[in-house]
C-alpha cells in the first residue's frame, strides 16, 4: 500500500506508524514514506468518513514524514485521537514552499503551531540564522529540543523566555547585529502581518505562509483566494512583493460558502 507514489491526484492511504503527543493540544503523526517535498509545501490529509484538511510537513527524512496538528475543531481533534495503524489518505504536496536563499543572516519567526512548516526549513538553514519562537505558554512550545540552532523564546504569559510577542524579539534583533537579509514566518495571520510591517519598515524581504479554507489544493475551485492570489497554488508562501499588493492580507477571507468576511469572523466561524 505504501509503494504507490503520493501525488496531487487521488489520496494514497498510509497508516500512522507513530504518534507523539507534543503537549495536550498538539500531536505529531508519523508516516513511513519517501515523500518528495520542499519546506513550506502542504499535503491534504483525509480521514475517511470525516473530512480532508491541509497540513504542512513538520518532519521530513528519506523514508519518513510527519504532520503536527493542533486540536482546534472537529477534524483536528479527531486527528489527535488517531493511533498507530490507523489509515489516512494523503495527496500532495501542494503549493510553492519557501524560496530558500543561501543568506547567512536570515531570521525565522514562528508563532504557535506555525512552527510546523518552519521546522524542516530551519533544518536546512545555516547555524548563523536568528530563530525566534513564540507561543501562548511554555507547554505550547513545539519541538523544544529538536534543533541545534539556538532559539529565542517568548510566551504570552511569560512562562518561558521573554514575556511578550515575537515581534518584540524581532524588532530587537533588527536593531542589533548584522542586517537581516530574509525573514521567514508562520503563525497567526495577525502576527505574520506585524512581522511583515516591521520588515517593510526596515526594508527586509520577508516570506509568510498563509492559511485559507481549501478544497482542491491545486488552484481550481477558488475557495482559498486572497486578493488576486490563489493561496494553495501561488502560495501558501508569499514574498513581500505579493503581500504589498494583497489587500486582503490580515483583513478578509472567504468562508466555506464563498462569503467574504473579516478575518476575525473567519476564524470564529471555523470553530463549528
Amino acid at each position, binding site marked *: 500500500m505504501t509503494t504507490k507514489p503520493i501525488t496531487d491526484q*487521488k489520496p494514497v492511504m498510509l497508516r500512522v506508524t507513530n504518534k507523539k503527543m507534543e503537549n495536550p493540544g498538539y500531536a505529531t503523526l508519523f508516516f513511513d514514506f519517501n515523500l518528495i517535498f520542499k519546506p513550506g509545501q502542504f499535503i491534504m490529509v483525509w480521514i475517511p468518513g470525516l473530512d480532508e484538511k491541509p497540513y504542512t510537513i513538520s518532519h521530513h527524512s528519506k523514508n519518513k514524514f510527519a504532520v503536527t496538528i493542533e486540536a482546534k475543531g472537529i477534524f483536528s481533534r479527531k486527528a489527535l485521537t488517531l493511533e498507530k495503524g490507523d489509515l489516512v489518505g494523503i*495527496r500532495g504536496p501542494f503549493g510553492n514552499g519557501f524560496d530558500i536563499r543561501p543568506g547567512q543572516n536570515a531570521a525565522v519567526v514562528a508563532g504557535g503551531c506555525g512552527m510546523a512548516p518552519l521546522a524542516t526549513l530551519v533544518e536546512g538553514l545555516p547555524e548563523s540564522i536568528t530563530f525566534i519562537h513564540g507561543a501562548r505558554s511554555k507547554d505550547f512550545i513545539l519541538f523544544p529540543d529538536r534543533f541545534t540552532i539556538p532559539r529565542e523564546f517568548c510566551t504570552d504569559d511569560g512562562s518561558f523566555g521573554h514575556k511578550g510577542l515575537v515581534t518584540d524579539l524581532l524588532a530587537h534583533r533588527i536593531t542589533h547585529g548584522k542586517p537581516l537579509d530574509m525573514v521567514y514566518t508562520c503563525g497567526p495571520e495577525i502576527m505574520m502581518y506585524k512581522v511583515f510591517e516591521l520588515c517593510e519598515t526596515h526594508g527586509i524581504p520577508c516570506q509568510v505562509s498563509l492559511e485559507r479554507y481549501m478544497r482542491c489544493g491545486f488552484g481550481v*475551485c477558488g475557495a482559498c483566494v486572497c486578493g488576486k492570489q490563489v493561496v494553495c497554488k501561488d502560495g501558501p508562501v508569499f514574498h513581500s512583493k505579493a503581500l504589498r499588493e494583497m489587500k486582503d492580507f490580515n483583513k478578509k477571507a472567504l468562508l466555506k460558502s464563498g*462569503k467574504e468576511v473579516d478575518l476575525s469572523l473567519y476564524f470564529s466561524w471555523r470553530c463549528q
Partner: protein
Amino acid sequence: MSIQFLQRTLKNHTVLASGILGNSKDILERVYENGCGLVTLKSIGPEQRDGHKNPTVIDLGCGMINAVGLPSPGYLNMENEWAELENRNFPIIASIYGGSVDEYRRVAEYVSAKKPDFIEINISCPNSEQHGMIFGINRESSRDVVSAVKSVISIPLIVKLTPQAPDIADIAKTCEDAGADAICAINTVGPGMVIDIESGRPVLAFKKGGLSGPMIKPIAVRCVFDIYKAVSIPIIGLGGIMTGEDAIEMIMAGASLVGIGTAVRYRGIDVFKKVADEMDAWLKSHNLSHTDIKGAAHKD
C-alpha cells in the same frame, strides 16, 4: 481583434467556466488579465450554503471529479462583491441556481438588477441533493425555469445544460423557445464515483461527483453538435477544452464561444491566453477565419 456576442464586444472567444476560481472580483480580474474574454462567477444560490465536506475536488489524471456542492454566500449576502464589480473593466456572466422555479426567479431578478453583462442559469448541476440537475433533464421544468427567469430580467439569458438529459438538443430547443438567448453546454458529466479500496469508502465526501476535463470532451463536442442542429441561438461550448485545437474542434461542432474550467489546473491561470493564441495561430496557418470554421463539422 475583438468579437461580438449577444451585442457585447469581447476580446476573444474564451470564457471562464462557472465554479472555477470565480469567487471574487480580484481573481476574476486576474483571469481576465490572463487572456480570458468573458468570466463567469461561481453559481449564486438562494441562500448561504457551505457546500459539502472535503474531499470535494479530486484530480483523476485525465480530468477531475468534483462535488463541491454549490457553496454560495446566498444572493442577498454579496453586497460588497456587487459594489466592487460595479467598477469592473471586464464583462461578466452571473451564474445562478435555485431549488424551485420561484427561487430561480427571485435570485435572477435580484442579480439582474446588479447589471452583470449576462445571466446564466445553471439547471444542470449534479452535486447537490435538492438543487439543479432535475430541471435540466426534463423538457417541462426547463421551460418553466427559463420563462420565469426571462420575464424578470433585462439582460441576455444563457442556459447551462447537462449532458445527462436523454436528449440535450430537445432541451436546448425548448429553452430557445422559452426565451433563452444562448446555450452553455456542458456541465459536468456523470455523476461518477471513485472508491478508495483501502478504506472502502467513496473518496468524495458526497460520494458522487461530476466529471470534467479532457475525458469529457467527446461528450461535450457531441452535445454541442446536437444542439447546434436544433437551435439558432449561439452556444458556449465547454467540457475538456485544453488547447487551441480543442477550441477549434468545439467551434467546428457549432460553438460560438468556448468555456474553460479544468484546464486551469493543467495549464495554469493563463490558459485563456494560451488557448486564444493557439486558436489564432491555427486559423492563420490554415488561412481561415472563425466564421469559416463555425459549425464546419456539419457539412457532409
